[in-house]
């Protein structure tokens, strides 16, 4: 497996924060500690050799039964280098928060709201952390694995 410039640089720059790196099917992935996510993202964007100017996707995964339970997943893309990288930060259920990266990529705004809405992960420092896809009054977070598929909370109408 060829070494990846991004992963190398990242591991060297943040030796304590980068927990693990791997490349699966050509997708470079770094698993990092959530405390330093802001610094890591800023480095990835600002380092001229990396220049990850696109925040392509931000989502979360619920690994119910594992500890830490959640993973916040960032997909970044560098236009000038034509490189992709995936950054994952593990978030335990007990401390279900992570720093918001809206200050680095504006695009993260809605993506973070969506993750908050569907997974209940709180993004510290987000300017407007409200539900996005669901409505006020909806209890719980439907994409958590322990939320039943058909548990409906209608605004009006019967509970069908």
């Amino acid at each position: 497996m060829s070494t990846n410039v991004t992963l190398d640089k990242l591991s060297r720059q943040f030796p304590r924060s980068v927990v693990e790196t791997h490349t699966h099917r050509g997708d470079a992935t770094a698993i990092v500690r959530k405390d330093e996510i802001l610094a890591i993202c800023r480095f990835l964007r600002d380092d001229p050799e990396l220049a990850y100017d696109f925040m392509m996707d931000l989502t979360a995964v619920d690994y119910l039964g594992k500890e830490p339970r959640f993973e916040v997943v960032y997909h970044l893309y560098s236009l000038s280098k034509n490189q992709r990288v995936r950054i994952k930060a593990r978030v335990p259920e007990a401390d279900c928060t992570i720093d918001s990266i809206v200050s680095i990529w504006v695009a993260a705004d809605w993506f973070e709201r969506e993750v908050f809405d569907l997974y209940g992960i709180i993004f510290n420092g987000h300017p407007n952390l409200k539900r996005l896809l669901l409505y006020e009054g909806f209890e719980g977070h439907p994409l958590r694995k322990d939320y039943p598929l058909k548990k409906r909370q209608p605004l009006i109408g019967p509970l069908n």
Partner: protein
Amino acid sequence: MGITTAFSTEEPLGGSVVLTKLEAAINWSRKYSFFLYPFATACCAMEFMAVGGPRYDLDRFGAALPRFSPRQADLLMVVGTITHKQAPILVKVYNQMTEPKWVMAFGVCAVSGGFYDNYATVQGIDTLIPVDVYIPGCPPRPEMVLDGLMKLQEKVTKEKWSDWPRGPAPVKMKC
């Protein structure tokens, strides 16, 4: 055409006088002048565009003019999935429409929720408002929609004077 069933000309008067029941005459005129309100939410809107387009041409049935104000419309076409977030809006739009009004559930999501059986979707709009004609299909073919519209026209011709709604009968918002 409907005119022969709704009206009859009286020969002794030289064909210059038309006799009919008021009920039949009104129903006849209503069925060829649907003003529709496209409550288009989802994929079915693509087929709705095709139905309104030149090839299938809703205009042939007198239902060509979409009104985007519920006050001016009498046929509510619910085109696509209705989610729980959307439900109050649908009922509000329905209540804003003046009588007489009809509702067409366009596509299987509006009919029954379709294959979206989960926390977010309403399982058929008939849990919220009364529906006159159901058009299944995901999305239904334009021919199907035209068929549904003709079914509705048939239904309208059979409406009785005594059944016509008198005064507002809004659907309650709270369950």
